[in-house]
């Protein structure tokens, strides 16, 4: 994203561009004092500009009111991604996050609380290091969030059958009306209960497309992100095996964006397969003990996904 698209005043933008800061990456590697010196502005103003820049780069990743479907082979890290998202949505606004709560709907039982605690603690450490780095000229700032608060802000639902899943999706509207600060709904995984024991395929299509519409409505009305995690299957077409999304083509039509997680050699990659406004691109990532991180190993600033 370019500097000229940041929500700053025209004079600030002009100063940034004439000083040579044209892209967001150049801003992210600058410190507040460097910026103040280059632009001949006060420290406080430089800090504001950096905050705006980091906020807009992060909010690009979690636009509200879209339903995103992540498809991937087992072991690629879908549940890890889900846990990371549930933690990241709670990053407070002054650190560049949304400061909201998360709803996690678990159909497979793959949510591990200990792992969520680990990711939450790593997130808090990163946040305090980040804010210390930003405000190193000013007093050290205490991040007013503890790991148990983060766990408290994840509303966890466990569904054990497809009827429970349908009932829960119908109930979401009422639930979110009562808990307005929910900013993300993660369903892991949406198709699990529909793949086995469902004889009537036509009924399955009807039920799933109805569920997709309800989730779209929730996403739109409450301006939140709905993330659906899905598995891939092998399709046998004309003698060759192809990987396709579980539950077929009518289900892939029902979501707004689609991100495919796949193995590229030894590396995990994410690829945007369908999006109304973003172009097709792929990015590598890795699953570490601290959560999902960029896979570039040499970076000085901790980048949160």
């Amino acid at each position, binding site marked *: 994203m370019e500097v000229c698209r940041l929500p700053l005043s025209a004079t600030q933008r002009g100063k940034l561009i004439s000083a040579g800061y044209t892209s967001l990456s150049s801003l992210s590697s600058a410190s507040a004092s460097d910026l103040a010196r280059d632009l001949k502005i006060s420290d406080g103003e430089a800090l504001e500009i950096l905050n705006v820049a980091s906020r807009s780069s992060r909010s690009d990743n979690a636009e509200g009111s879209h339903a995103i479907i992540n498809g991937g082979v087992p072991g690629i890290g879908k549940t890890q991604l889900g846990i990371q998202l549930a933690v990241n949505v709670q990053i407070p606004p002054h650190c560049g996050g949304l400061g909201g709560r998360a709803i996690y709907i678990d159909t497979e039982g793959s949510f591990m609380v200990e792992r969520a605690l680990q990711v939450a603690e790593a997130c808090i450490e990163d946040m305090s290091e980040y804010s210390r780095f930003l405000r190193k000229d000013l007093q050290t700032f205490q991040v007013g969030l503890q790991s148990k608060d983060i766990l408290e802000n994840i509303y966890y639902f466990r569904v054990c059958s497809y009827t429970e899943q349908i009932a829960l999706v119908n109930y979401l509207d009422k639930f979110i009306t009562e808990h307005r600060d929910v900013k993300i709904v993660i369903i892991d995984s949406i198709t699990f209960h529909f793949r086995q024991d469902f004889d009537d395929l036509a009924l399955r*299509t009807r039920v799933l*497309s109805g569920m997709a519409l309800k989730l779209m409505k929730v996403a*739109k009305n409450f301006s939140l992100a709905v993330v659906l995690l899905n598995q891939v299957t092998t399709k046998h077409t004309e003698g060759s095996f192809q990987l396709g999304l579980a539950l077929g083509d*009518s289900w892939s*039509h029902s*979501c707004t964006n*689609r991100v495919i997680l796949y193995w590229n050699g030894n590396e995990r990659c994410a690829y945007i397969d369908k999006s*109304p406004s973003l172009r097709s691109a792929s990015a590598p990532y890795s699953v570490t003990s601290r959560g999902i991180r960029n896979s570039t190993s040499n970076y000085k600033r901790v980048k949160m996904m």
Partner: protein
Amino acid sequence: MAESENGAIEITGGSVRHFGLQFPIFLCFQRHFHRTRAHLREIERDRQHQPWLNGLQLLEDAQQNKHVLSTGFKGIDKLLEGGLREGQLTELVGPSSSGKTQLCLRVAANVAIQHKGRVIFLDTGNSFSPRRIEHFVRQISGSVFNEKVMSNILCHSTFDIFSMFDVLHQLENSLKSQGHKGDCKARTLIVDSISSLITPILGGSGPQGHALMTSAGFLLKKLAHELNIAVLVTNHMVAGEGGNLKPALGESWKSIPHVRLLLSRDQGNKTCSISILKHPSLASGEVARFVIDD
């Protein structure tokens, strides 16, 4: 009346039996026809049905009111001999991620700029992207940001078929009462995608799903004809026989749109191809290619 009717038929019926000539039957039909026409005129007066039009009136209407809207893609315009026609329901069918939404957004931008018309976009999957519209507007009009153009593209989110009926009826009333206001005349209605609204209700134990689907189709065609707008809807594809894909919504839907276009995207490419599945005046099977750039 009825007795004399029967009497007339009986007499001529007798003639037919005995003489087997066509002349008496013709008399009978003519008398019956006159009676029916008088009866129909009565109904028309009583219930104010639409008066019937003759061929000349229809031709005049087609030439004056039903214009052809260019889509903005030369290849597609050439394929469709002009573009989308007002008064017709065009269906865009294609597999997932083949460019249906992008094409709809581009058509919306083009109609708003080139034809200076209002576009109504019914979005069922939160895929309307103002950013993309802005990009297309800049691309078409050459990087001059036009607020008036952007304000002529109206987007409404609907998530079930009944609210779509609501929106369409409201639209009908407001557009009919507005009349023709020059620049701000509505020219295109886009429903992306209508199959998401119909799939949850189609099939099952009752015929309500089919009834709702055909009513939706007829309402869209009625709006197209009466308000002189081009209606564009998108449909997805499902697995058919032999592992091939076929358009969703089944056999009954096939006869409803006037024009059906099949969209597909080459693997890993930005080139899309579009072909005619059904058209009232063009041959099917022709293919055109186009590119939607970033």
